[in-house]
């Protein structure tokens, strides 16, 4: 029997953060993960994260994973891989299946950080090869370098569906459509907008009714749904796809908490059945904690803080941390957490459909929620999206209150301010001179910042856009500018392509378009 001060189950952001925090305080920690590689969801995430600097904002998910692993290694945290915890028993004993052996381990405290499992919806042919989970699509393209398919139907428009759709485009796949049974797109508007502007259509109030094909997916039938989410006969459409990707939500993996005898509760705002926990993540079984997605579906940014909070609590109880120091840290982490848990996508607002305005009182875009892009008349309600300074200047199409502020940190010249409350929309200070450096464009996790010069040349405007596709067009290339809906609207010439190391692979592509399209041209295609 192995004995430890702390056992952490799951080496995702929550588990690794907990282990790091505890090891720093001198605890002997063992981490078990059923996967062959640590990091949980992080190594599949190649996009820049939201939040603020203290939450690793604008870093790509896999880099955050690398940093956590490096920290864990420095501290000598033992991460056991291919080690599935089967159950937690009396006296905080865990049963671990490690390759073909079964081992027992015991600790004074246990943190369950097992993350979440993907939900599935039944439809005719759902078990055919070619119907895959969003996580599988990510594993194939981002870890294995293999395209999941050529043409994909994405089912689900939450952040996972939106992020994976964009990643599919980056991998060179076509996305035929993103559909959602709900009347509105579930994820961040900025995530939807960067998919929509490449020309991917969104169908809300739609579901998939059948996967066509004999031995593999050769098409998909989708249909509109009524108010009870039932397909409406006669509204079927057939899409020519070879892959159907399912991203219809995640459920917390609370099974281990159940084996430990923790009280469970069905809480839809937390994504399903979860253990009852206190403010430190401690369950009804003393010294057994639950943190991260296993305790309620949220984000990696929150999972990391929740892991740390449970770790300091366990450390305090075991005498590794004094009461005063514990209180100070707990307050600091709680403050950091509360910065993230605000805005229209915060857990407490999950499922709300009654919001019509931003915190600032601007009308929320209906088109963004229904089609994934802002209509021109809606854009005009937002000051940061309708600046008309002389010379090059940022235009920020960030129109929902999400916890995010890298744009503010990016601008050394003080052009952009979000303020202490990071869910507030960015504000542009027109008295500060923009140099066109492009750092804000590259830092924006939502790819929502454009650099516009209405008077670039007589009769022409320049529009700088974030570009994360290959091949990167060269200066001098001629093609088309697309609008927010992804429709070609005019000829465009690439006038410059800027990329520096600090931009971390987001290219600033500047195109020249007829002046009247300055506030419509938002993507470029050869």
């Amino acid at each position, binding site marked *: 029997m192995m004995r430890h001060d702390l056992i952490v189950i799951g080496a995702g952001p929550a588990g690794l953060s907990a282990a790091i925090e505890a090891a720093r305080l001198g605890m002997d920690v063992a981490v078990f993960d059923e996967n062959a590689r640590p990091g949980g969801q992080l190594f599949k995430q190649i996009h820049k994260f939201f939040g603020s600097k203290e939450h690793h904002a604008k870093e790509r998910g896999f880099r955050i994973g690398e940093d956590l692993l490096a920290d864990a290694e420095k501290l000598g945290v033992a991460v056991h891989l291919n080690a599935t915890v089967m159950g937690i028993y009396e006296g905080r004993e865990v049963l671990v299946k490690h390759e073909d052996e079964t081992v027992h381990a015991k600790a004074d405290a246990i943190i369950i950080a097992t993350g979440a499992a993907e939900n599935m919806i039944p439809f005719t042919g759902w078990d055919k090869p070619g119907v*895959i989970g969003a996580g599988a699509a990510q594993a194939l393209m981002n870890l294995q*370098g293999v*395209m999941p398919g050529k043409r994909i139907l994405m089912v689900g428009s939450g952040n996972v569906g939106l992020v994976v759709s964009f990643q599919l485009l980056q991998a060179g796949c076509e996305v035929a459509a993103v559909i959602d049974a709900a009347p509105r797109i579930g994820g961040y508007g900025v995530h939807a907008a960067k998919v929509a502007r490449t020309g991917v259509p969104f169908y809300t109030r739609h579901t998939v009714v059948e996967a066509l094909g004999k031995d593999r997916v050769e098409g998909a039938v989708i249909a509109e749904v009524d108010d009870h989410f039932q397909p409406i006969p006669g509204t079927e459409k057939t899409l020519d796809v070879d892959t159907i990707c399912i991203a219809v939500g995640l459920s917390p993996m609370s099974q281990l908490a159940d084996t430990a005898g923790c009280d469970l509760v069905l809480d839809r705002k937390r994504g399903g059945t979860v253990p009852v926990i206190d403010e430190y993540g401690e369950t009804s079984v003393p010294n057994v904690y639950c943190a991260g997605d296993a305790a309620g579906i949220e984000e990696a940014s929150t999972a990391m803080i929740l892991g740390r909070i449970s770790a300091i609590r366990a450390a305090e109880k075991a005498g590794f941390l004094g009461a005063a120091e514990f209180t100070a840290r707990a307050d600091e982490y709680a403050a950091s957490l509360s910065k993230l848990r605000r805005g229209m996508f915060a857990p407490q607002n999950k499922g709300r459909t009654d919001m019509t305005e931003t915190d600032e009182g601007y009308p929320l875009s209906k088109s963004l929620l229904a089609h994934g892009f802002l209509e021109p008349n809606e854009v005009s309600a937002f000051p940061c999206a309708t600046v008309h300074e002389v010379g090059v200047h940022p235009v920020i199409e960030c129109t929902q209150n999400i916890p995010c502020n890298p744009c503010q940190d990016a601008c050394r010249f003080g052009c952009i301010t979000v303020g202490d409350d990071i869910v507030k929309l960015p504000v542009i200070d027109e008295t500060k001179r923009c140099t066109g450096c492009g750092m804000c464009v590259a830092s924006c996790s939502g790819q929502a910042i454009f650099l516009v010069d209405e008077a670039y040349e007589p009769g022409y405007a320049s529009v700088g856009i974030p570009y994360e596709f290959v091949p*990167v067009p060269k200066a001098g290339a001629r093609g088309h500018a697309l609008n927010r809906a992804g429709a070609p609207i005019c000829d465009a010439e690439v006038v410059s392509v800027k990329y520096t190391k600090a931009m971390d692979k987001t290219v600033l592509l500047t195109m020249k378009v007829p002046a009247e399209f300055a506030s419509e041209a938002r993507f470029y295609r050869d």
Partner: protein
Amino acid sequence: MRIKQHPIIDDYGKGAQISFTLDGKPMVGYEGDSIAAALHAAGIMTHRYTAKRHTPRGVFCCIGRCTDCVMIVNGQPNVRTCITPLEEGMEVQTQYGVVNREQWEADHQ
């Protein structure tokens, strides 16, 4: 199909080319591939046929949970190909129920 160029990922950490067989046919993959990834890259979608209704299954979760992707590997049935690294000379067979095709056909004469 393999991704030839990616805007964010420079390197998938793949090593040398590897030979293996699928139902006796020669195939290639790379060190660092899972068996499923190498098959997917070659356009192979069906990993097994279910025992009762004989319907095809392929990769679904890709994290070792759903068991849709199991195949016979070096004679051993029920190997989760999505989490099993590909190795030189591996003999991979489509699984019919819990056996290979010849056995299945012999049993279902």
